[in-house]
């Protein structure tokens, strides 16, 4: 059962709410609900059998046989459930010239469904879709819409929104591997290299990396610091637990791909026959793993049978072998982007209304991220060699 309930109180209609307030409307609301998540394939609780194609048959004695393979399955899989609370205020000021809403929410998700590696021998493959634990989100959403200027010659209406979300994995179900860390986030280069972690107390999909020792100028160390004749992780990374060896126990959750704040702004202006509108978007506090740099930013690339172009980061790092697990590649990818901007001019042509306009999509992005696009990757993993295109469009509209 997925019930929901909500309640709202329109304070502005109460008799005690006098006419001498700036509010033309004020509403307080609260809601509670429970929802499921269906974003996974059907029949996860059953092992389903996949028939091989003709090129993957097996010789069985004197005949070739098409084979069947059962899939990994969790017979005990349950619905993922989210219980959410939301309290909010809707407001309208100055006869509706300014309006907006403020919301605060808490979402508790239990029996979170994820596809994760499972201990070898427990199931029919090394990855399984299962309930892994519970997660908590809370956040704030603000929005404001205003007709800021409404004079005869100039009009300007604008909307602003801001949201902040905090995410934390609360627990990992002991059924799911007993491990208190589950590695996820496969990256290119290397075989089965996983760069993200699910662990209680950290945001979901936090990057799971070594802390790379830094030189005085901030560049990552590439030197035989322990003098054993080779350069390996013992030389490069911080021994977090101080046991004298750098190993898997010294990787730690470090930043995460989700933005802490998302800001948006849209403006629509007219001035005489001209109109201008644009949309700005900003993410703050989102991190990206630069997989292009980690995969190709190494001199060993040139010794491969068919080398790729080196990534320029190698000029700073000097890495001779790939260092996939270095925190050097986890970058702050906060950005401000002009998603689109349109300028138009309206006129009459032989008595017909007409408008000439020009639009730029992805006009610019301001970011400190070194890869081609701070939003290029999925879940904060940037392995995209193809930059987002900037589109210029010009047009003429004539109405007949």
């Amino acid at each position, binding site marked *: *059962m*997925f*019930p929901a309930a*909500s309640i709202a*109180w*329109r304070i502005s*209609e*109460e008799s005690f709410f006098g006419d001498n307030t700036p509010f033309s409307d004020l509403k307080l609301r609260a809601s509670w609900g429970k929802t*499921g998540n269906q974003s996974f394939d*059907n*029949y996860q*609780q*059953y*092992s389903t059998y*996949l*028939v*091989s*194609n*003709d*090129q*993957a*048959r*097996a*010789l*069985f*004695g004197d005949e*070739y*046989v098409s*084979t069947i*393979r*059962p899939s990994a*399955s969790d017979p005990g899989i*349950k*619905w993922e459930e989210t219980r959410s609370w939301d309290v909010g205020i809707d407001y309208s000021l100055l006869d509706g010239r300014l309006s907006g809403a403020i919301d605060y929410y808490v979402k508790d998700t239990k029996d979170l469904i994820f596809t994760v*590696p*499972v*201990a*070898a*021998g*427990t*199931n*029919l*493959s090394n990855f399984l879709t299962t309930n892994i634990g519970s997660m908590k989100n809370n956040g704030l959403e603000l929005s404001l819409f205003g007709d800021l200027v409404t004079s005869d010659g100039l009009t300007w209406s604008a909307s602003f929104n801001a949201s902040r979300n905090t995410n934390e994995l609360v627990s990992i179900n002991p*059924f*799911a*591997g*007993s*491990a208190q*860390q589950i590695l996820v986030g496969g990256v290119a280069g290397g*075989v*089965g290299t*996983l760069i993200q972690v699910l662990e209680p107390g950290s945001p979901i999909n936090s990057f799971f990396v070594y802390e790379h020792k830094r030189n005085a100028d901030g560049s990552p160390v590439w030197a035989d610091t322990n003098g054993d004749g*080779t350069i390996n*992780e013992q030389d490069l990374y911080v021994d977090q637990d101080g046991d004298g060896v750098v*190993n*898997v126990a010294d990787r730690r959750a470090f930043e995460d791909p989700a933005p802490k704040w998302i800001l948006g702004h849209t403006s629509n202006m007219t001035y005489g026959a001209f109109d201008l509108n644009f949309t700005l978007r900003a993410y703050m506090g989102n991190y990206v793993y630069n997989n292009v740099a980690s995969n190709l930013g190494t001199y*060993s690339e040139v*010794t*491969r049978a068919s080398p790729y172009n080196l990534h320029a980061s190698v000029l700073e790092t000097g890495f001779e*072998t790939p260092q996939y697990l270095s925190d050097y590649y986890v970058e702050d990818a906060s950005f401000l982007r002009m998603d689109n901007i349109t300028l138009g001019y309206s006129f009459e042509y032989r008595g017909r209304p007409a408008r000439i306009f020009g639009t730029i999509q992805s006009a610019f992005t301001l970011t400190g991220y070194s890869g081609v696009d701070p939003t290029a990757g999925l879940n904060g993993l940037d392995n995209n060699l193809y930059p987002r295109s900037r589109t210029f469009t010009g047009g003429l509209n004539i109405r007949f």
Partner: protein
Amino acid sequence: MKIRMHKALVATVGLLILAVSACTDTVVEPKSTITGANVFNDAGSYKAFIARVYAGLAVSGQQGAAGQPDIQGIDEGFSQYLRLLWEAETLPTDEAVIGWGDVGLPEMNTQLWASSNSFVVAMYYRIFFQVAMANEFLRETTDAKLADRGVTGALASQIQEYRAEARFLRAFSYWNAIDLFGGVPLVTEEDELGSTPPEQATRQQLYDFVVAELTEIQNQLPDPGPSAYGRATGPAASMLLAKLYMNAEVYTGSPNWSGALTAVDQVINSGSHSLASDYRLNFMADNHTSPELIFVVPQDGLRTQTWGGMTFLVHASCGGSMSNADYGIDGCWWGLRLKPQAYGLFGAGDGRDDYFYTDGQNVEVAAIGNWNDGIAAPKFTNKTSTGQSGSHATHVDTDFPIFRLGDAYLMYAEAVLRGGGGSRSQALAYVNDLRERAFGDASGNITDAELTLDFILDERGRELLWEGHRRTDLIRYGLFTGGSYIWAWKGGVQAGKATEDFRDLYPLPASELVANPNLTQNPGY
């Protein structure tokens, strides 16, 4: 505060129960999808499933050559069982180098792998994928389930044979685990599917399990013959038992040379296999016609395609000025060459090195990445014994000999020399059978005085080069790690240097130690 109910106060309570029954209960029997509940309505499914357990050694997934991988998070071509096993058994020894720079691969040439090494990790998951398939087959074919489905008669007895085969394949993979990793979890059909991590078994417990299984199923397996080609037979089980006994001292601390001798004697005297008259026939596109092969991983250019397996082995052995057409393939991958020590084993008159390719190749391997450093050894080819090319120029027809009679002959001789009983003159006769085939006449035959353990190791290096036995052999002789035998690039330098003895075992995957907290890492890692 008093709240009056009027139009300012709006409350809604929604109770949404979706019309789909799946909403309250995730368990809905699928009608159109093949599941364990309906797949065995088709009697052919039993054969299709046991064939799949065999295919685990031959392909990497349900779409040839790639596309529906068996294991995730790993490049599918790299993840193929035979390819991983061959690399793990060959690259760190005196037999071969691979020149590619894929992450983790260079360390396989030098014994310097870490616990996150991709190829080590993939081997581990491959072994457990095989074990899981075999276990699931056994769970789906219990007497109770067969009775439920009304399976009787010829099909029921056929399924009993399949069950023995599944247990053989599971034993084979556990043998690989014992040999490569030591103590790993022992998971059987008794363990429920789920996600509870299993306990770690000791190497001894795994050994005992595998020996007991093989002893029990030995006589339930199909007899050798055309209808059992590519399948596990009685002699194949004896051969696997002999492998365990031969290495019992390494695996358990106590040797069992007489067990080894008895088991290998059963193989030889089963009468079902004989030496191929031409040594080379065992490694060609029509090697299924060789009477010598006891257990193979079958490959087929059109019907059993993979980017691992023999496709890898034939292509990677070719490069430089070699003509790919001479090997029946459409291109060379410029990967595998001999380390100088393996090349140095072969003397004049020995026909077993006739296929070596030396034009433009240096004996010494100054740079592993340079194809011309190291003699090329295209032992496996996609040409048939009559000079025809295989059915497909990318994916080859050549089967991989896991076990063959030539190996059994040398195992017999070694077991005799180590005190396992048997006959010393018979041992000498077996060795000279192989020598005569290699030299074409008796000119290469050895005398009784020359029949020593050191000779056997060298002879294994010649007879079984690149057949995936070398690491196990060197460990049995105590030469794989340490400083008593140094070869090129052992320990990461061209001259070679001593390595630490903990490298006789591969590390358990670092990621697996996170996923399964019951595991203890092998010492040294």
